[in-house]
């Protein structure tokens, strides 16, 4: 998609974007691939022209495939092999947690997979998925809706639909047995654990509770894990995670993961960190959460949601995900109501999804003697 088309050869898309004051990028997520442009509104028509041009057909060739293969390999070198913790929660944890290939595989692929990719593979993928009836165009900013609709019709209207295809069933029930992998990370200096659980479908009654639980556990110095593990037991050093962390909100197909990543002190064992985490979750499952604390966390979730929608690109991405996954951009507007409705009982039920026996965890420890 970044190697050009017959009419706009390689580099033209980028140059036109930047010469119009904007920038462009792409991102592969578990359920959608995003192609984004952030630019002054005067560039609208030419951006739609360029996007429609590349949806109409790419300049496939061995050279462009080889070049992008090298770019992805460089990306893997810098993001994975030269990173002390590698792909960890992004790539390794899903492989440990899920069974179905669609949910489990590492989106980068390894060098062997990349070398095995043929032009026919790439062309087949493009013609199967990169077509108007499988895409959402979301535009947010200083533009008029009528203008955008008419430009979209003009630029994309003539691109043919693709052949129907069946979406795979991505559901996976909770794990029945835990997984714990312990690995030495030669470039790491401090240990860390990433743990994940399989989540129910996005329309499940517990989804909003799980979203709020993710915040209650991880978000900021008022969070339960900060209080319990960084302060309190003084075993952890940094925390991140939550519900559906790689797409946000409730935008996912089939299943997603609930993630908790904890960096911890070298003198502490991974078992102690997992046990402390389990105690904090069990306390929520058993005692629930007080009204005042729950109200604070919900306020924070909503304020963070607004903050994410303030940049036009953030708003466009959320609208596109809501439309692509929930089938309607208006679904975005349901989120505040779903969050407001979460009760203490919902959080107890959500906490039950994070049972130790359903967990997959990967522990990365620095080489011995590095301390």
């Amino acid at each position: 998609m970044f190697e050009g088309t017959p009419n706009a050869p390689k580099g033209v898309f980028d140059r036109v974007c930047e010469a119009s004051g904007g920038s462009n990028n792409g991102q592969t997520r578990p359920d959608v691939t995003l192609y984004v442009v952030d630019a002054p509104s005067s560039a609208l028509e030419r951006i739609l022209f360029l996007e429609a041009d590349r949806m109409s057909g790419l300049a496939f060739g061995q050279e462009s495939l080889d070049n992008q293969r090298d770019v992805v390999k460089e990306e893997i070198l810098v993001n994975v092999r030269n990173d002390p913790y590698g792909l960890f929660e992004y790539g390794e944890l899903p492989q440990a947690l899920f069974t179905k290939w669609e949910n489990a595989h590492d989106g980068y692929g390894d060098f062997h997979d990349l070398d095995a990719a043929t032009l026919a593979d790439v062309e087949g993928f493009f013609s199967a998925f990169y077509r108007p009836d499988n895409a959402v165009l979301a535009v947010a900013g200083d533009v008029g809706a009528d203008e955008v609709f008419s430009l979209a019709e003009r630029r994309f209207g003539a691109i043919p639909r693709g052949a129907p295809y069946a979406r795979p069933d991505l559901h996976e029930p909770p794990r029945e047995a835990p997984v714990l992998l312990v690995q030495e990370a030669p470039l790491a200096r401090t240990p860390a654990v990433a743990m994940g659980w399989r989540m129910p479908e996005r329309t499940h009654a517990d989804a909003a509770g799980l979203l709020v639980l993710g915040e209650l556990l991880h978000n900021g110095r008022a969070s339960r894990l900060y209080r319990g593990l960084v302060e309190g037991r003084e075993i952890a050093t940094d925390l991140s995670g939550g519900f559906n962390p790689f797409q946000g909100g409730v935008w996912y197909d089939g299943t997603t993961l609930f993630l908790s990543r904890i960096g911890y002190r070298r003198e502490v064992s991974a078992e102690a960190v997992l046990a402390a985490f389990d105690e904090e979750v069990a306390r929520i499952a058993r005692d629930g959460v007080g009204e005042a604390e729950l109200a604070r966390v919900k306020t924070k979730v909503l304020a963070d949601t607004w903050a994410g929608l303030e940049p036009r690109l953030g708003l466009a991405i959320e609208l596109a995900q809501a439309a692509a996954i929930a089938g309607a951009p208006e679904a975005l507007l349901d989120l505040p109501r779903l969050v407001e409705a979460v009760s203490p009982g919902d959080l107890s039920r959500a906490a039950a999804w994070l049972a130790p026996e359903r967990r997959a965890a990967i522990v990365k420890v620095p080489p011995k003697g590095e301390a």
Partner: protein
Amino acid sequence: MNAPDGLPPLGEERPVPMPEVAASRLPNGLAVQVVPWRGVPLASARLVVRGGLSDDPSGRPGLARLLAAALREGTASRSGADLADLAQEAGGDLSAGAGPDSLTIGAYGLAARLPLLLDLVADVARRAAFPADGVARARHLAHEELETSESEPSFLAVRAFAREVYGTHPYATIAPTAASIDAVTPGLLAAEARRRLRPERALLLVAGDVKPEEAIAAAGNAFGDWAAGGSAPPPVAAPAPTGGPRRILVLDRPGSVQTNLMVGNLGFPRTDRDARALELAMTIYGGSFTSRLVQNLREDKGYTYSPGAAASWLEGCGTVRSFAAVRTEVTGAALNEVLYEMERMATTEATDEEMDRAFRREAGSLAIALQTAAGVADELARLWVLGLSPDEIARFVPGLAEVTKGEVRRVSGRVFGTGSARIVAVGDAAAIRSELGTFGEVVEGET
């Protein structure tokens, strides 16, 4: 560039809304800037105080960062947990950080809770208590953060590059050391907070869905009776070039599959008349995806995934740097291309197309940055620290439009001198040291 057939022209240029800054000053000297910025029902309040890592006493590297880290551990009347709970209740977070030239204490959340947000910022700035247990924990976390950072080659490169460029100036230090972390005590932090956090050295910035008169009144309530005690830190002189010929510092990271290269020079302050020309020059050289450096190293040669270049502006100086994490085996080839592109900027003129593209990219970037209240506040804070007025935001694009190709080439000559460049390479020293020796004097250092 050959435009594709049928490419539509640019549409009508819409005006970019410029922030309207209500500026005021409290009798105690505290500057106040309020920017109403509607869109979402949020507001941020931040206190920016002049002097950051540059004010750290010699022998106490990184003290400003340690001070910032400990500020939120509690105040005279609230525990650290109380502060965090209240910030969460307002829908936000309380933050504290240190940069080369400033300390910042900030809170964001629902605009309706602005008085609480201001109260939290004021409480931390004026009455931080540095409880012994909180300071001990902050010390421990600082050790862990340092350890984690030291496992990242990009951090090692940035830290070493600062030492190479700034020499003995305080800007040479970007992080604490294990020894300076151990030396931190509650008494030291309390004395530093008194010395540094003072109204006449501070700007209170409020941005978001607020009314200026209400925000200024709330600022008066929270900060009006704030009085400075003791003497302020002395002024810090601007750094001087470290001098001497090109030098390559190699830091060994055995097993590294890449080399993190950083190449650069001391430049000049943002108040210099060439500053706008430099912004354009950097965009053409390495500051955008279609820039020369990115096209050469990534798109043409395939040496690296994310090369780039940037000018950083500090009080009294500026620095220009290029960076790339490249495959170990092409380390020398990549450095050769970086030096070639630097020299090309300084010796030949940019094309009209490059000039126009860079101008539009810079103007568009500003419009994109000004979309959010936080973006506006970031820009205002940066300008204030550098001694520039908020009007600079509105003057930036018209000023860029006047820059000529000749000025871009001349300013490139000022900052892209390859003969005096400071170069840092973090990677597998055994694999890269001899190759790098062909570019100049190689010095090996401790990571």
